[in-house]
């Protein structure tokens, strides 16, 4: 494993705090601001809490891409970026739109064990 990649396998249910600690620790090493770290952690948590089904485990890979941090979460099963957070804004707001407020890019991409959610957060220019 390269030094700029951290991988975790976690039970889906109840381990959000572990994901937060690890992602926060790595993001802080890359000199993200407090708010950016918090947004990244919130995005990861939002994906974990939106996963269909609450049993089993999920892999989280955090990769320092030099200028950005990419987080790959999977398998995410039938998770859709179009699914809605119902209590928001009457009809609900799409998960993808919510995530895009927290990270710079978000997509569902194929992975070795099924679909994955790929989040990327860019470092601020001053930190590169």
């Amino acid at each position, binding site marked *: 494993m390269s030094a700029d990649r951290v991988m975790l396998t976690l039970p889906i249910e109840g381990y959000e705090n572990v994901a937060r600690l690890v992602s926060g620790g790595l993001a802080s090493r890359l000199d*993200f601001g407090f708010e950016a770290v918090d947004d990244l952690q919130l995005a990861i948590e939002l994906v974990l809490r939106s996963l269909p089904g609450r049993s089993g485990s999920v892999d989280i890979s955090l990769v320092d891409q030099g200028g950005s941090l990419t987080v790959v979460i999977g398998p995410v099963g039938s998770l859709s970026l179009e699914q809605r957070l119902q*209590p928001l*804004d009457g009809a609900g707001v799409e998960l993808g739109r919510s995530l895009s407020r927290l990270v710079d890019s978000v997509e569902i991409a194929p992975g070795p064990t099924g679909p994955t959610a790929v989040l990327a957060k860019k470092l601020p220019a001053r930190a590169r």
Partner: protein
Amino acid sequence: MTGVGVASETDRRSLLRAYRENGDLAARDRLVEDFMPLISSLARRYAGRGEQLEDLQQVAALGLVKAIDRFDLDREVDLVTYIFPTVVGELKRHFRDRVWAVTVPRRLKELYQQLSRLVEDLSALKGRSPTISELAAAADVTEEEVVEALEAGRAFTARSLTTLHEGQDGDVELIDLLEDEERGYEAADNRELLAAGLKSLDERERRILQLRFVEGLTQSQIAADVGVSQMHVSRLLRQTLEKLEREIESP
């Protein structure tokens, strides 16, 4: 009763009537202003229990506005006798929702409080959100300790009102500490809250979600808009996410 402004009860009722019957917002503002010494006094009473005074003052002010909106002008009681328990109820509800959910070492609680202040100060100083390393340097701790304390701060989070109501764990002691004056109106408020359960988000939570996820404001911009600290916004976002999850699980 101490800490109430200079207006007489008759003046206050006149202001309240002007607001209620004519929509006179200036009259309501005058009323709010008149009760601010009481609000500040009550907020200070609950300070030092893990929450920042400015956040408590915001909570108390929210309670005041609720009381002004709800007070029945036909009742033969002084306005202040309604406002006092309503504001105290709002403060207690705030603590009920935000007790430390797990045992957190004292040093981390204190560091978290220190970091809350530093985030505000450094953000103002630098015009941007401080990095973890800047926070660590300012607090004279390691970066790992900062991350650990921030995570510990998230244990300062939502707890089911029902759980506390049923007294199923020892944390109910915090509420015991907060027990005091009049309970009549507050009990009614709590019944309403329990009846509503946690399925619905309150107005502030909806607004914070709306500002963050729909309008795309940053946490610091939301903090300025809503009038709480940035870290308070962070906690509220997480607590609201947990509620969303419960709502999705049990529609």
